[in-house]
């Protein structure tokens, strides 16, 4: 590539001389793990293949989830339009009257909203993002042959697959999938009488997400073990790239919070199936008074958000890690404040466990308790702000190479600022009174989490595509994708702030039932049109992705971006075990760009006499 200059080292020689001989190749004559089609492509235990499996499954779900959002946006933007043309796809969920007018049934609107949220949050931005890049990069950037347990890693993917299959199946139930919101608050989610989706749909939803948690835990344990035990010679914790720090902390947060979610789910299953009253009390529904007394729906909300809030950081931390790496590599400049970046991630990770009730200010918890949650919530904004300033400072004085990954990384920073700042409104409980459950919240979390995490993921895919498939993605299509998406995403979500301020509640099937909410037809049309355009642009990405796997420009240089990290010392298409000979040894921190007049000094190059390691300060 353009900016790779002759640096005078020879990685092969260095690795041979200084590298770590783990006797890997003494034992593996022929590859018993990748001997046929099934063990190579399906039940693979190779982390790189598992990464690709996560990515492609995630893309599948992203398309489904996004398409669902287009359908319900059509309902919100054009409630009077005839939707009969969707009947071949959506079947009886489109009701057609005698005049041939097709309408989206309200139950199905809510089912779509619910499935959209569940799919995007869990299947795309958790499995598709962290699953893909943790798997791909942890061994490659740490200098490990594979994950600590290839077998558990394989199980992790297949539990995700199972979970996906169950959720997919629930879409085709005659009563429809679950429709009570991605947060699944009881009693609505506990009582089949309350909603058609709360019957079998909810049973499958719970089953699917339980499998999903198994997948996350298997993956997480593996990531943590690998990071702690399988770092190559010289790779101290303070020499790990920020990507690895992010995946490592994400995995720990997941291991600590997901089991709580499952416990909440189990209690819900008991209430649904065994007649217990954990969440149910004094309910009169369907013409009958239920016997359950003494339960509390608020208990579920505590259990849910004890995961739910860390979950949003499970989503964003990997994106932050990817973006930090991409910004530094393409600005040709060290990430600014490496230690501060790690520390702020640690702080965010820790604080994310003690802020969950900011989702519950209006749920009937004692208002006094909220004082603490306001305090902790707004404290989180400090490490978040530090990260933003550090990213901006990373650009300062750089020599920025503009390509698709870099553009998406810069876009990420903008989105994270925009969405993070609205968090400061919502975290202040008093302001949350008018804003809670309005479009202001929808705008907040879509910008800061939804779109920003997608941008982190895109940056990662464009940047590491050469490592995954030995080819580049097409730059022109990448840029069309970027420019359309950033403008379009803001066009979709920015106006929602105003809707929220005007008080328009989220999760409304139509707005004309209220004088106060009905006067935004034009805004809603605008948003819907923007959403359709953005959706179409994602198709450009999908085309680019699959086209480039087979026809992209071939990678010829093992280190095409001129990066310092270890994944670029492997062969262009690494086989099982990643390195052909010794493992590379690490001699310095991963961000020596522009040091001593050299464009970059890779991690495997020993420190010169008297040279200070950049990470040690």
């Amino acid at each position: 590539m353009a900016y790779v200059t002759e640096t005078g080292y020879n990685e092969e020689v260095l690795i041979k001389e200084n590298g770590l001989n783990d006797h890997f190749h003494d034992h593996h004559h022929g590859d018993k793990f990748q001997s046929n089609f099934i063990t190579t492509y399906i039940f693979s235990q190779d982390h790189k293949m598992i990464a690709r499996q996560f990515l492609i499954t995630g893309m599948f779900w992203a398309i489904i989830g996004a398409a669902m959002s287009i359908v319900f946006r059509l309902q919100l933007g054009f409630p009077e339009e005839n939707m009969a043309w969707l009947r071949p796809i959506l079947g009886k969920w489109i009701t057609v009257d005698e005049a041939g007018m097709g309408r989206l049934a309200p139950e199905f609107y809510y089912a779509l909203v619910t499935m959209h949220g569940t799919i995007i949050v869990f299947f795309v931005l958790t499995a598709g993002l962290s699953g893909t890049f943790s798997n791909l990069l942890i061994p490659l950037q740490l200098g490990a042959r594979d994950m600590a347990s290839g077998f558990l890693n394989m199980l992790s993917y297949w539990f995700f697959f199972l979970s996906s299959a169950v959720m997919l199946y629930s879409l085709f139930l005659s009563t429809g999938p679950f429709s009570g919101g991605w947060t699944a608050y009881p009693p609505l989610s506990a009582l089949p009488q309350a909603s058609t989706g709360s019957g079998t749909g909810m049973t499958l939803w719970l089953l699917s997400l339980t499998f999903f948690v198994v997948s996350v835990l298997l993956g997480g344990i593996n990531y943590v073990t690998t990071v702690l035990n399988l770092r190559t010679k010289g790779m101290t914790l303070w020499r790990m790239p920020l990507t690895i720090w992010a995946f490592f902390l994400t995995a720990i947060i997941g291991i600590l919070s997901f089991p709580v979610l499952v416990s909440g789910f189990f209690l819900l299953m008991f209430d649904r199936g065994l007649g217990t009253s954990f969440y149910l009390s004094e309910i009169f529904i369907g013409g009958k008074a239920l016997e359950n007394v003494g339960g509390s729906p608020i208990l579920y909300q505590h259990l849910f958000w004890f995961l739910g809030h860390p979950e949003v950081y499970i989503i964003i931390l990997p994106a932050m890690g990817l973006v930090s790496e991409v910004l530094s590599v393409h600005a040709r400049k060290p990430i600014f404040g490496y230690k501060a970046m790690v520390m702020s991630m640690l702080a965010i990770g820790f604080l994310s466990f003690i802020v969950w009730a900011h989702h519950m200010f209006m749920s009937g918890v004692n208002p006094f308790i909220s004082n603490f949650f306001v305090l902790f919530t707004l404290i989180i904004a400090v490490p978040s702000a530090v990260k933003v300033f550090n990213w901006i400072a990373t650009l300062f004085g750089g020599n920025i190479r503009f390509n698709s990954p870099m553009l998406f990384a810069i876009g990420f920073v903008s989105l994270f600022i925009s969405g993070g700042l609205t968090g400061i409104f919502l975290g202040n409980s008093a302001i949350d009174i008018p804003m809670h459950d309005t479009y202001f919240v929808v705008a907040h979390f879509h910008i800061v989490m939804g779109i920003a995490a997608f941008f982190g993921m895109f940056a990662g895919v464009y940047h590491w595509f050469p490592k995954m498939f030995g080819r580049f993605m097409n730059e022109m299509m990448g840029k069309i994708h970027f420019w359309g998406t950033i403008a379009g995403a803001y066009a979709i979500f920015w106006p929602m702030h105003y809707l929220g301020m005007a008080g328009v509640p989220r999760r409304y099937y139509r707005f004309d039932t209220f004088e106060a909410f009905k006067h935004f037809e034009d805004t809603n049309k605008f948003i819907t049109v923007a959403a359709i355009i953005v959706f179409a642009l994602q198709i450009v990405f999908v085309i680019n992705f699959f086209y480039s796997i087979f026809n992209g420009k071939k990678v010829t240089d093992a280190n095409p971006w001129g990066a310092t990290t270890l994944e670029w010392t492997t062969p262009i298409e690494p086989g099982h075990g990643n390195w052909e000979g010794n493992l590379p040894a690490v001699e310095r921190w991963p961000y020596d760009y522009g040091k001593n007049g050299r464009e970059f000094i890779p991690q495997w190059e020993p420190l010169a006499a008297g040279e200070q390691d950049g990470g040690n300060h």
Partner: protein
Amino acid sequence: MTGLIILLCIVMLAIVIIQIGKVTELTAQIRGEKDAQKESNEWNSKGLLIFGAVFLIFCVVSASYYRDDMLWYGVNESASVEGSSIDNLFNITLICTGIVFFITHILLFWFSYKYRGREGRTVLYMPHDNRLEMIWTAVPAVVLTFLVIAGLDTWNDVMADVKEGEDYIEIEANGMQFAWNLRYPGPDGKLGARDYKRITASNPFGQDFTDPKGLDDFYPDEIVLPVGKKVRVRITARDVLHNFYLPHFRTKMDAIPGIPTYWVFTPKITTEEYRQMLAKSDEWNEKMDPSDPESKTRAEMFNYELACAELCGKGHYSMRRVVRIVSQQEYEDWLKKQQSWYANNVHNKGGKVVINGKEESEDPFEGKVTPVDVVKDSTSTAVTVKKDSTAIAAPVKK
């Protein structure tokens, strides 16, 4: 057929895009990767700069376009005393975050442009700078401390319950799929006891009419309140979660089956005054029916509304009730017209209800108590309850 055409269009478009991609890749190869990258740097960094400028302008312009919807600005004024302090806090936060938003975005886009890749540019090797980092940790910390203090101050004021001996009106809003039931305490000022197992069509709250406090309760179909008087809403739910949401009063509180919650607020603008205030905005002066010059304007048709803000099922979007804020006099006139639910709908109606397996009469007195006759003492706000002298076991006491 149309489906086929659409499909064809999509395929064509995909082919076109792939071709554009291919062609640019080829020209890049012909001209050399280095030049292609240089050109990309120039175009995209300028693009970011322009995008940044347009974006920031768009933020300002859109804010002024939607001014009437924003808290604190325009005509979206809080109709409750408590809500005004929230709007203030909102505005303070908007200013603080707005400054950060503009500074960081300007720097982000400016640096992207200024430090676009150029041949021979030497990169600043600056892995960290303790002083800068101290500053940008400390400044947000100070600003946030300020926001936390201001926020908690407001929060604890807004959420304060009524105090002992305070004068207030207590009403109940009970959420069910998919409507709000409303209950006023009647002349005694007290809501009667309820038991969810007693709910029937003629007793939607499941009132236990052996409780004398409940005999005069009435169930209006809109909320009517006098201006300037504190209201405590008892918020309950019959089946699933709902949320008592009055957008104009900045109230929002979940309604939970089995766990009553409450909300205290003081209306400060009557419906009529709010309409006049709205009439100052052009947008609100549009006719409801643009083709009919005789039709009323939006402002004239305005009403406060009660909505539901917690997903409760397929009819969640339709749980509307009108809220009217009136003068004290109008309020009292309205009260006079309201009639006890018990007297009109339960008394001696012969309905049955099954409680814990036992069948009971819905009217516990089986018609033996004459409906309480309520007379208001004209000299004081206290009320007396006159009851028929022949009533036996009439438990009605002031």
